[in-house]
Structure formats: structure tokens, C-alpha cells
């Protein structure tokens, strides 16, 4: 027992003058990991409304609903938008994994707290996503061209 206490004591005292592993949070921030799943972003222009994310979501967060103003596309079909009930989301990443057009993704933003649960939101963006630090820039453009090719 005395030996194990000695080993532990040496370990403890070595920490005393080492750099701490934690930071003073609001003043200093740690960078989240590269594939961190934070804020949910839906790109309206990349999305082809294939319903895959809605079907795959294990928590019934996502749904495609028709627009309130009853707008239709050039074929006469009603336009749909993705809506999310974000307080159900468990950030499993299934939606972005299953999306064929990378239209739904997670940002590395982790300060998502709100005053009440209805204020939790999915964010929307339009157009091709600007070149992000990850390799999404080239991937986004290629999917954009694929998209136009299909149409």
C-alpha cells in the first residue's frame, strides 16, 4: 500500500507545476474536434427533398412540410421545406451521413443553450457553402454540378 501511495504522490506532485489540462472557459476556449457535431445547418439549395434524412432520423426531429403560402414549383408540385424540432435531436449525425447531396451538416459550434426549448433552431443557408476548413469546398462544388446534371 505504501508503495502505491508513493507512486500516486509522485504523480500528483508532478502536476503541481505542469500546465493544467483545463482552461478558464469563458475567457479561453478549447477547439472542438474536427468532426464535432454541433449546430445543425440545412442548405436549401443543395437539398433535393429526397426525404432520406426524415426517414432516417431516429428521434423524429426532421420533417418536410409544404410552405404556408402554398407556393408550387414549375411542375405544379407544392414546394416543401425541412423543419426541425431541435429539442429532440441527439446529434447522432444520421441525417448528414445519409444525405446524398451533403445538404445537411453539423457545424463545430457548441454553445447552443437557449432560454426555452422552442428557441432551439436548425439554421438554414443558401447557395454553395463557402470553403470551410474541412475538405467540403471541392466536395460541395462537385455535388452542385452533379445536381444540375441530373436536372
Amino acid at each position, binding site marked *: 500500500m505504501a508503495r502505491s501511495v508513493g507512486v500516486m*504522490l509522485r504523480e*500528483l506532485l508532478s*502536476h*503541481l507545476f505542469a500546465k*493544467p489540462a483545463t*482552461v478558464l472557459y469563458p475567457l479561453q476556449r478549447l477547439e472542438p474536434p474536427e468532426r464535432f457535431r454541433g449546430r445543425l445547418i440545412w442548405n436549401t439549395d443543395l437539398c433535393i427533398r429526397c426525404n432520406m434524412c426524415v426517414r432516417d432520423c431516429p428521434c423524429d426531429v426532421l420533417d418536410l412540410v409544404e410552405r404556408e403560402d402554398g407556393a408550387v414549383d414549375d411542375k405544379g408540385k407544392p414546394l416543401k421545406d425541412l423543419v426541425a424540432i431541435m429539442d429532440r435531436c441527439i446529434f447522432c449525425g444520421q441525417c448528414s451521413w445519409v444525405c446524398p447531396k451533403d445538404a445537411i451538416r453539423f457545424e463545430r459550434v457548441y454553445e447552443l443553450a437557449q432560454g426555452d426549448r422552442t428557441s432551439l433552431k436548425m439554421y438554414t443557408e443558401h447557395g454553395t457553402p463557402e470553403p470551410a476548413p474541412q475538405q467540403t469546398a471541392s466536395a460541395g462544388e462537385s455535388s452542385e454540378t452533379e445536381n444540375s446534371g441530373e436536372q
Partner: protein
Amino acid sequence: MDNAGSLMPLFYVLIFPGFAFLVAFGLLVDFFDRKVVARLQNRQGPPWYQPLADMIKLLGKEDIVTDHADRGIVNAIPLFGLAAVAAAFLYVPLWNAAWPFSFTGDIIVIVYLLTIPAFVLVLLGWYSPNPFGSLGTGRVITQLFGYEVPFTLALLTPAIVAQSWRLTDLLTYQATHFWFILTTPIAFYVAVVALVGKLERIPFDIPHAETEIVEGPMTEYTGRKLALLKMMFQTEMVVGSALIAVIFLGGPHLPGVTIPIASPLIGGLIGFIITVVKTLLIVFVLSVIKALFSRLRIEQMVSWCLNWLAIPILVQVLIVVVIASR
């Protein structure tokens, strides 16, 4: 002049070195303890004002007394405990041997007053309708049997060596001879470990083991009363550490540092700083113990204390008595 002289005892008791200083020093020691434990665990630790902020927060909270609890007792007990610890602090000589509150037998009075916080916890749990409170009370009493007698004997061993029941006499003895940590090392070890039990810190935090019985006797407490109880523990840590620093580490005495007798103010200041540093040294040891161990079970604690505190301190007392009688 006469008027000012009659106000001096009041100043001593209420401001310095009495209650106000004790509370401020308690907050400092609490910060020091938390910071050291955090750094030992590779964390940043709280900023310096965190204990004060905690205290202000608690003081500002709603004051709740549970149903079926005795309102008078519940209100009075925390004050009683804090008052006992604050009274004990007055008798610890902080800067020199000419301490205004010193009298023959003060060491016994301090030991007696430092026992009161344990009984405060017993009463808290006893008058609380909460089962965690009663459970914690039982543990407080059981634990008391483990550390109380060794602690008392450990503090009295230097008194036997110095042939005096007066703390200032122990100071003068250490200034002319060796510090008691060198002459009675076993008593020092027992005193520090028993102090851990007295303060109910890890590994002896069994009475309020958070993972088992919430906060033990303090479960139903909040607001002002919890603030007073926290303050009681902080100040008890100050008094216990300062007491050990005075009895075993020579208090204001430091070899090589001659305190100028001509100016009592500067001499007192130097002695005071030395005592505070030694007190923080003891607190550092307590913090390392806190970071080093995990909680024992109650029966492990008592049997360990009987084996490794009671027997060594009896051997120490025997050695001292045999040497003193020769």
C-alpha cells in the same frame, strides 16, 4: 486613552485577530485548498474570489426550514458551532509569546472548543427529519471515537514535554529547544491525520459522503444556515492548522530570523507572517491528502484509526513520559 484601552479587547475579539480576520483567513485558506487540489488534479482551479462569491450566493438565498424540524434548534446550532470555533481561534498565539488571551490550560480549552463542531453536526442530524441526517449523525459519532482521543493526546504530548498547559510556554520552549515536529514526530503525524478526520475531509468524509448520503447532517440546510456551517468548517480548518503550526512547527519562531524586540509592531508582523505561512503549509499537506486518497468505509476508518493513530500515539506518550521521568 482610557476609553481606547477599554475598547481594545472588543477590537481583538471582533476584528483582529478575532472574528473578521478569522473569516477572511478562512476564505483564503478555502481558496488555497481548492486551488492546490485542483492543480494536483491537473485542473485550473477557482479564481481567488470564488469562496467569497459562494458565501455571498448562499447568504442571498432563501432561508428554508423543513417541516417537522425544530425551528429554534435549527436556527441556533450553526451559530453555536461558528461561535465555538471563533472562540477557539482567540487562544492560538499568532505572533509572539506575549499573547493577550493566553492563560494556563488554554490548550485544553482549544481542544474542548474544537470538539463542539462534531456535536453541532450530531444535533443537526438529530433534529432533522431527513433519514440521511440521522445516518450522517451516526457516522459522525462513530468517527468521533476514531480520531478524537488520538488528536487530544497528540496535542497534549508536547505539553508533557514542555511541562506546561499553556500554548505560549510551548512557543518559548520551541524557541529555546527544538521544534516539536523533531522531538515528537509521531504526535505530529497523528495530529495531522486526526485533523483530517475532525474536518471530515477525504479520506474521512464518511459523515457527509456525497455519493451515498447526500450531505449527511447538512442535507436539509440551505441559504444563511448552510453559509454559517460552511464558514464553520473553513474556520475550523484555519484553527486546526494554525494550532498544529503553533504546537509542532514553532509558530512565529524560525531559526535564523531574529524578531526585533525593540519594536513590537514589526516583530509581531514578522512573527505573524511566519505563522500564516506555516499554517498554509499544514493546509497544503491536508490538500495533498485530499487529492491522494479516496473515501474509506466507516468501519475501515475506525479500525484504521485504532491501529495507526491510537497505538502510535500511546507509544509516543509512553516514550515522552519515560524520558521526562528520567
